[in-house]
């Protein structure tokens, strides 16, 4: 918004709980919190000049994504026809640093209050007939008071803005935690493929960081996650390699059924099945890089109210299996910024429900199906029950063969 021409005269305040994060050069070791940035999100970051900073710090493009089942041979490969980048693996710190730089560039319009916290909100009545201010009043921990025409809640899945605005949230805690770590590969490779295997306990993913390093995101039961965190480094590395390479969950029945289906497909569509590749093997884990956090799913029943809008995890929370969480948030931003820009150019009151509802409708339509699909995939792949394995095996194989469905 600070870089939008129609916001030239507007004033924006950003309340950030954390400290200012700016890097001129990245440390040698990689951070264990990374995100898979879609091309669309990269475009958004490019539009405000942040992507250039990302490129000058560090990031890893990937060209292919291979997703496969632990219980069968079924797999699906995603790649662009023209061998373009499918996405980028970027450390969260890098994105933060890039955004900090671009915020500095519009400091006359955007004031960032680091290490700040809102302790109270006063909401306006919709059609005020009394003499109180029609704007949202925000009280900060340091006693300062701010008032605003539009409050945007981007405060994560435990959003206080959402709670105080009394917006109902449909939420569900998965009995899973994600384990993250920075891994070093056995040997250098192009490393431009993102790997994900669905184990019955949850998906394990290897995201490329460089020719020799990858980031781990392993969603599994809380107990197993704790185990993974406390076991010695060697056992940890063994578990990872075994998770990707072992066929212990295969059954003859499924293997045969899968093979039959695959031959059928190759008769109908010769190019429709590909050979399953194996991910690189892991040699070492970065000490201190192991961490875990619980997983859940959530969706706010409303994204907007008079003078309030929710974006990102405050509005919706998904399982990391699709690598979409942050991209949904960036999509929210692009949409809200578009509607606010048009509203500003029309001289509208920025907190007016009329354009906020347009944002809500557009994003809910997009997000709900993706969140539901992700949730369904999570449930579908959490079982070893033969009928469901068969269903998802054939489903995955068929999807891999049919470009439109893919």
């Amino acid at each position, binding site marked *: 918004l600070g870089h939008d*021409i*129609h*916001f*030239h*005269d507007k004033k924006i305040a950003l309340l950030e709980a954390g400290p200012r994060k700016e890097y001129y050069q990245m440390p040698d070791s990689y951070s264990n919190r990374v995100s898979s940035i879609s091309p669309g999100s990269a475009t958004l970051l490019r539009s405000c000049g942040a992507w250039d900073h990302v490129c000058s710090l560090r990031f890893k493009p990937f060209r292919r994504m291979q997703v496969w089942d632990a219980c069968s041979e079924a797999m699906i490969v995603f790649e662009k026809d023209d061998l373009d980048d499918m996405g980028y693996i970027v450390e969260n710190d890098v994105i933060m640093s890039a955004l900090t730089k671009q915020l500095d560039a519009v400091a006359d319009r955007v004031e960032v209050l680091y290490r700040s916290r809102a302790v109270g909100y006063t909401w306006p009545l919709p*059609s*005020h*007939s009394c*003499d109180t*201010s*029609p*704007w949202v009043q925000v009280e900060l921990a340091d006693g300062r008071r701010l008032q605003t*025409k539009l409050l945007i809640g981007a405060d994560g899945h435990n959003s206080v803005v959402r709670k105080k605005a009394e917006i109902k949230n449909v939420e569900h805690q998965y009995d899973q935690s994600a384990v993250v770590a920075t891994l070093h590969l056995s040997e250098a490779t192009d490393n431009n493929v993102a790997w994900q295997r669905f184990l019955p306990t949850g998906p394990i993913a290897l995201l490329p960081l460089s020719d020799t390093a990858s980031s781990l995101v392993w969603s599994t039961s809380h107990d197993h996650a704790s185990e993974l965190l406390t076991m010695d480094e060697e056992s940890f590395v063994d578990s990872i390699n075994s998770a990707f390479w072992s066929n212990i969950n295969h059954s003859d029945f499924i293997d045969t059924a899968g093979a039959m289906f695959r031959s059928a497909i190759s008769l109908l569509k010769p190019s429709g099945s590909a050979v399953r590749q194996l991910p690189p093997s892991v040699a070492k884990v970065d000490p201190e890089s192991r961490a875990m956090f619980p997983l859940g799913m959530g969706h706010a029943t409303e994204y907007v109210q008079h003078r309030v809008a929710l974006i990102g995890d405050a509005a919706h929370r998904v399982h990391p299996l699709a690598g979409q969480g942050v991209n949904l948030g960036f999509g929210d931003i692009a949409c809200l910024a578009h509607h606010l820009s048009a509203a*500003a*150019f*029309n*001289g*509208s*009151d920025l907190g*007016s*429900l*009329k354009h906020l509802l347009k944002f809500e409708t557009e994003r809910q339509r997009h997000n709900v199906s993706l969140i539901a699909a992700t949730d369904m995939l999570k449930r579908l792949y959490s079982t070893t029950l033969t009928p469901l394995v068969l269903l998802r095996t054939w489903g995955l194989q068929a999807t891999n063969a049919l470009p439109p469905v893919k």
Partner: protein
Amino acid sequence: QLSLFRFTVKRPLSTSHSSVDSKEVKKFQLLAHKWWDEEGEYAALHSMNDIRVPFIRDTLLSMTSNYHLGNPLSGIKILDVGCGGGLLSEPLGRLGASVTGIDPVEDNIRIADRHKSFDPVLAKRIQYKSSSLEEIVEESMETFDVIVASEVVEHVADLEMFIKCCSQVLKPEGSLFITTINKTQLSYVLGIVVAEKIMGIVPEGTHEWEKFVPPEELEHVLESNGFSVKTVNGMLYNPLLGSWGWMESTSLNYAVHAVKSGARGRSHPTDAPSETDIQQRSATAGTA
């Protein structure tokens, strides 16, 4: 046959000859507190901003090469005649214009003043005054770059005098924007019967079909008072979506952009139109 003759009720000429109709004043007084309820009685006027503000903004931008997209109407002095609660003044003020809003209903001005007071930027950019157009003519000769008279001319008692006064307070080559309702059988059915009595889109009694103004008549009055009509566009309200759009036909609502001629100081004496003039205009009105 709704009407063959348009009975232009003219008040006897006096020093306080006014284009303000006192019956109209009373009507709006009753609803003054409803202006800023976006989903209330004035919802249709709120959503009209979605087309009338871009119309005004883009027309003005197209007439100049020196503007900033972040403050498109900066430096432009606008008079919002019949501003009501300030529904149109505020967006114009936000776009950078210096706006003077006038309205004969004191309660409207009070509401407008209070609403703008909470916004420090608008409080400085907009000035409201309870007044009729005639009353400010003397102190505001050729003062404004733009006059906006949106949903007003169908409420005035004397259209000719109203347009004359607009011309007097407008700078040469200044712009006049008018939105109003055509006087047709369709506008009676949809604009009065459906809009007021059936669907409640407009508070009942707001409009009198007799006072609706056909675009041909408006154009005639404008042209004969030193204006050059540049644009006439039909407008349509979609009650299901609650939104306005442009349309070819001007048989219902329409918007006009006219420009005052550049020659300075041409003032027309207030002459009463001749009998033949009245009948000629009525004839066209009846067959519209």
